[in-house]
């Protein structure tokens, strides 16, 4: 990881020195342990701030839409899939973005760390190969990195950048094919149990819309939930209102969601959003054999009509 940091810095420096780009969007060290933060580098000297580690969890494709400058971006597998999806929707001009692709072995989930530490504050973190040493006031714990990764990272089928102008480091072993075991497990439950589960999850929702704002594919100038004339969706924190917002958002993402997990990572209340999102990612894969963001040549799946499209939703007459 140290090595990758240096390679990223060098790549960014060269891009800015050669004026290939006007701006590089990457990560710099955060103000807390196990945090890094998006940073916007405009001079070759500032590239020394760039880092690459287990905390680079944000999807930087979010910052690339509708920009006039030539921008370089440090992008992991999921980020590049978002970029592909955004290029297809004319939100990013392929010629205006230079992708520094970084193969990714997963990012650490802070919620899992918090659970492991039982709410105690993390003050220092050190990596030793495949394990992390987590230290706080008067305690120290170690854990295997793979246990602490985000669920979306553990089931990731595309850890290597799918589109890039430059690749940093070696590609990582291609992920196992995603079986959507988490969704199949939910589908097997009784409808009443699922209802109860989602009621419980969405009673935590504080309607901050971090999920929507962290999502690169959510870019409507006026989101359906913000509109109050008319008020399509209730703005209260009743779980039914929150659930309706999330159902609407998931539906608007159908066929476009690249399953990057940025929504779940952004949620301050730790809601299992992917258990809802991935249902449609799975449905699109099962019904149309399509995954969003894999190739610039793919047609947008729900924009394309074929006479033999499956229609399992029709009423049986």
């Amino acid at each position, binding site marked *: 990881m140290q090595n990758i940091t240096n390679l990223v810095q060098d790549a960014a420096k060269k891009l800015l020195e050669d004026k290939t780009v006007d701006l590089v969007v990457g990560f710099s060290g955060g103000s807390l342990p196990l945090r890094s*933060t998006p940073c916007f580098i405009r001079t070759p000297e500032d590239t020394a701030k760039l880092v690459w580690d287990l905390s680079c969890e944000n999807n930087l494709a979010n910052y690339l839409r509708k920009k006039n400058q030539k921008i370089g971006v440090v992008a992991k597998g999921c980020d590049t899939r978002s970029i592909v999806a955004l290029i297809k929707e004319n939100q990013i001009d392929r010629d205006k973005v230079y992708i520094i692709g970084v193969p990714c072995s997963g990012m650490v989930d802070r919620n899992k760390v918090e659970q492991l530490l039982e709410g*105690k504050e993390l003050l220092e973190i050190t990596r030793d190969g495949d394990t992390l040493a987590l230290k706080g006031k008067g305690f120290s714990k170690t854990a295997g990195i793979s246990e602490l990764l985000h669920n979306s990272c553990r089931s990731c089928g595309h850890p290597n950048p799918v589109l890039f102008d430059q690749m940093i480091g070696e590609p990582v072993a291609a992920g196992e094919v995603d079986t959507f075991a988490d969704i199949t497990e939910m589908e097997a439950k009784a409808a009443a149990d699922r209802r109860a589960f989602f009621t419980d999850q969405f009673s935590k929702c*504080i309607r*901050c819309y971090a999920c929507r704002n962290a999502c690169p594919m959510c870019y409507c100038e006026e989101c359906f939930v*913000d509109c109050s004339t008319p008020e399509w969706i209730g703005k209260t*924190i009743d779980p039914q209102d929150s659930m309706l917002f999330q159902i609407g958002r998931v539906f608007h993402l159908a066929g476009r969601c690249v399953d990057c997990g940025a929504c779940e990572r*952004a949620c301050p209340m730790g809601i299992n959003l992917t258990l809802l999102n991935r249902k449609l990612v799975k449905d699109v894969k099962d019904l149309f054999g399509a995954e969003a963001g894999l190739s610039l040549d793919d047609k947008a799946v729900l924009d394309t009509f074929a006479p033999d499209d499956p229609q399992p939703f029709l009423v049986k007459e």
Partner: protein
Amino acid sequence: MIISKKDIPAFLDGLMAEYRVFAPVKTGTYTMFQQLKAGAEAVLDYSNTKIPPKGILFPQSEKLFTYSLTGEGAKVEEVIDAAQSVVFGIRPCDARSIALLDNVFNNDKYQDPYYLTRRANTVLVGVGCNDPCSTCFCASVGSGPFDTAGLDLLLVDTGEAYVVETVSEKGRELAAKAGLTAAGDAAQAAAARVKEEAAVTSAVSTDGLKAKLDVNFYDGIWDLIHEKCLGCGACTYSCPTCHCFDIVDDATGTDGCRIRNWDSCMFPLFTMHGSGHNPRTSGKERYRNRVMHKFKYFVDNFEAVACVGCGRCINNCPVNLDIREVLADIRGSEARLDK
């Protein structure tokens, strides 16, 4: 006065006979203020709750009144919550924020009956912080780990017990009702020592901050400061002093109600006028407003900074936009008046 930690569950159960009691409760990974069903639910060993307890006095979604149309005309009923409540275990930063909110909901222009009724009927029992977190910067904004602003009683953790300090008449009455015993000299000394040793490690200088904010509205620094902000409301809804709200009607047929919901200046339609004009169309303008409101406008209006240094915005921000860094950047910048 003094109360032993093992007597706390019984103390809270006793209060529940007469009051609605709210205390920190473990809910999954996080700790949150909830209404207790039993005294034993309260956790005493926690740093702070994920979101502040201001929702007890100023709920995120609150019915203001109901209305229905009948044969005789329209019937409107106000919904005022006058239940007696105790909030146990509130931290001094959060209690101070209530004192700051009092400026907003109770001033010569407006007295909010919903907030003020709850406020008058709620006793705030605080627990001081022996061990502030690395993100706590209360001492930099006029507060501290044993600050009493907004509190009725302050409990100081001396290990096996809490030494209880009376801050207000309301607090004195509650302590008397609970029949708390007097604290001995040893306990008092232990409390004094705990207070001395509690250290706030994170410091943010506010020297010259207001002066810079008074002149830097058009400064280019705001383009850089807001750049990574996603424009969500995580900071707003985690903040104990944020108080902006939106009002909506919810009706079916002839029955309905008017509801007040929290709103965030980070949202794009926050300043949308009825005319269709929106003075803050960009994230930069909205983020600038957030900082200005807390560190300039509130100071201009009420002579107090609308930030208590609880650090929740730092912990909950999805992109780690740290207000401490923002303030340092502003202070260190050369403010210019050109647009």
